[in-house]
């Protein structure tokens, strides 16, 4: 018997409280309102906290996202009991889970990075340390935020690959919390390792004089025509988005046809990577078509590194319709063969992303307090988009899509109280 613990998210069964498409519209509008309120309070340069300086606030956004992924996909909501997940009112459950989310983010940033790793290993991971070394406080905070947000970005590309593509192989037989801890340790190790390759060289050339003995020279310079780590930011973002397109829009198709692990995981990993690179190159090329080729050493619209960053931003804009269609409109359509369903969804997503792109650049200055224009060097459409995404994830994973949907009983899954789910 194939005995394993399912992801709690996969075992949920929903009942509609409101009919579609009204249900989707209501839920989507609520989530968007929550996003706008949060943005206004925490981020907006005209708002209350004004953390979007920009890197500092953007870092928190990337971290609440990765911690939400850890909570739901890696730790499977441990240490909360399944009965709690099942029976608690979605709003209370949401508050508890978001509380845990914020606490973990605070711990990781303020304790782990600022006061442990930053002090004992890598100064640029801690702004108090950079400031104490004589750097202007504002830039100390911005530079360290960039490092930490990249840590989170790389982790949010790699971490979901384990549950989504590898189905937690080879630890799929473990139960909570051992499986979560193991997969977390492994993916976090990988993320740190890849950070050192993709982002550490950026910090070689960021400081003056160049720190050539402490970090490798940016190895991508010859083919990317920039020293900036934004080259990697761009394609890593495409990778992150690809994982979620595979999970939500493609419902793991066609990789779910492979029954054996780790073959399925490996195929999935490389499939995602190829998909991401094609997306990245296509977006770069679209920009060349729109504005003419990038020019080495130029700024703004023509800066090679900004073009890469913008490709990542374009990928992020794809994610909104991916999640809206998947979470709020039941991944319509479902009635055809998987490949046809997916093709129709992709079409809807591409068109919606183009519309979103147009609307974003038209309305974000009055709505989000950003500045007009595409290539402002101090603003990142990724920040609001990812906050919006994270709030959708909170809504789905932490609050069971309340009020549009509600959980139904899942007795068929629960054989032992509060623990193991059996595969039929």
């Amino acid at each position, binding site marked *: 018997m194939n005995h394993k613990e399912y992801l709690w998210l996969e075992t949920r069964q929903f009942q509609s409280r409101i009919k579609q498409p009204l249900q989707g519209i209501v839920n989507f509008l609520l989530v968007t309102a929550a996003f706008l309120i949060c943005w206004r309070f925490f981020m907006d340069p005209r708002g209350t906290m004004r953390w979007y300086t920009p890197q500092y606030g953007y870092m928190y956004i990337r971290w609440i996202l990765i911690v939400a992924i850890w909570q739901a996909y890696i730790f499977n909501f441990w240490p909360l009991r399944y009965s709690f997940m099942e029976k608690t009112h979605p709003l209370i459950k949401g508050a508890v889970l978001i509380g845990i989310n914020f606490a973990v983010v605070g711990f990781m940033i303020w304790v782990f990075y600022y006061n442990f790793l930053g002090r004992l290993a890598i100064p640029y991971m801690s702004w108090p340390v950079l400031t104490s070394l004589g750097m202007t406080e504002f830039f100390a905070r911005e530079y360290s935020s960039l490092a930490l947000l990249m840590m989170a970005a790389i982790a949010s590309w790699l971490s979901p690959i384990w549950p989504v593509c590898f189905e937690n192989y080879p630890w799929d037989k473990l139960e909570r919390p051992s499986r979560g801890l193991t997969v977390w340790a492994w993916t976090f190790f990988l993320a740190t390792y890849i950070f050192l390759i993709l982002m550490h060289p950026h910090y070689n050339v960021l400081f003056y004089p160049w720190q050539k003995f402490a970090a490798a020279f940016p190895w991508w310079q010859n083919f990317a025509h920039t020293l900036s780590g934004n080259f990697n930011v761009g394609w890593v973002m495409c990778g992150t988005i690809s994982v979620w397109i595979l999970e939500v829009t493609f419902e793991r198709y066609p990789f779910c046809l492979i029954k054996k692990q780790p073959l399925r995981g490996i195929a999935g990993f490389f499939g995602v990577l190829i998909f991401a690179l094609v997306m990245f*190159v296509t977006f770069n090329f679209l920009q060349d078509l729109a504005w003419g080729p990038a020019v080495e050493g130029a700024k703004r619209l023509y800066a090679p590194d900004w073009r890469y960053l913008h490709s990542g931003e374009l990928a992020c804009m794809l994610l909104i319709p991916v999640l809206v269609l998947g979470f709020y409109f039941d991944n319509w359509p479902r009635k055809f063969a998987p490949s046809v369903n997916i093709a129709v969804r992709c079409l809807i997503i591409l068109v919606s992303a183009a519309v979103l792109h147009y609307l974003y650049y038209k309305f974000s200055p009055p709505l989000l307090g950003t500045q007009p224009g595409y290539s402002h060097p101090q603003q990142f459409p990724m920040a609001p988009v990812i906050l919006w995404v994270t709030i959708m994830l909170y809504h789905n994973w932490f609050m069971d899509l309340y009020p549009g949907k509600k959980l139904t009983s899942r007795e068929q899954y629960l054989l032992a109280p509060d623990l193991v789910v059996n595969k039929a």
Partner: protein
Amino acid sequence: MTDISRRDFLKGLAVGGTLGYFAMAGVSSTVMKNAFLPPPKVGAVEIGECKSVKATVISETSWFNNSLLMGDMQKAGGLLVNQYEIPWTNTGVQEGWKGDNAGGYSTLIEVEQLDGKKRKFLLDTGWNVDWTDTCFQREGIDKMLSNKEIEFLFVTHEHFDHYWGVEATLKYYPDIPVIVPKGFYPEGFELLKGAEFTKCHLANKVPHTGPLEVRDSSKVHPVIPGVASITFDVPIITRVFGEQALVFNVKDKGLVVITGCCHMGIITLMEYVRETIKGGDNIYAIQGGLHISPFEDWDPQYDDLVLAIHKYGIQKMGCNHCTGYVTAEKMIAVNLPLVRGTAQNKSKRDIYLGNGDFLMI
């Protein structure tokens, strides 16, 4: 069943992978780029010729204490906050001007026409009115304004350090023609008319009574023979939008570009000049702020610039202000032709042109 679908799947993956590879190789190849992208344009707009141009730095010290300025921005909420909403530190600054951290940016431009006639314009008008006025008196700008020798005020962009000291100019010449780039906010126009903004400690007590022209990016704007202005639709920190620069065609030398901050980027500016203005493939000199590391901050993108700029074959680089000392040091290290200054009148180092220094082409 599983076997078949797995075989199908692997076949699909192989086809997908191959297609993906060709798509990537194709998209990034020069063949594709040549097929889809238009060939680079060659500048065609004639701007005439002049005999010489001289740029005198009236003030390049926009502020005196960098970390205080950054602290003001940080406290207000970072680089995107509206400049009129930031309570800039204006008292108790030791190295400041009478305790005020505000200085300003302003340059006098003198052009000699082919017929020998001399023409004068003012590029930007500082921030701190008292400091700007002091610099004006040092360079004799006050008299040039009073007797209308200076023909107009060319405001490169709405930034505090380039525009907010407009009272210093209007005090001597209230009806001076003013040229601003498209993108000015209502506050900017109100200031010109004589408004006060208490939050950012800003006021203009002398309302402007002369002509005002707003220039957009649709074309090259002629100024006088041999001189033109170009505008860029560029979003800038502290909510500013749009910047303009001056281009001169100096006989027997080539083009000279003079900027305020150059937020659009000096390479973008030079590429635009090359594509638009006749003779744009020969840019002889640049002068002004090159907005690279104004706050002595850094981004590897700026190294890209330092490493790429030599391709443009510039003979003389007069820079200062928001170019940043780190940038200047890096530029000297790669043998770029930076013109040195004399570190006078509160300019801190002689590494580039400081207050009272000039560049003559």
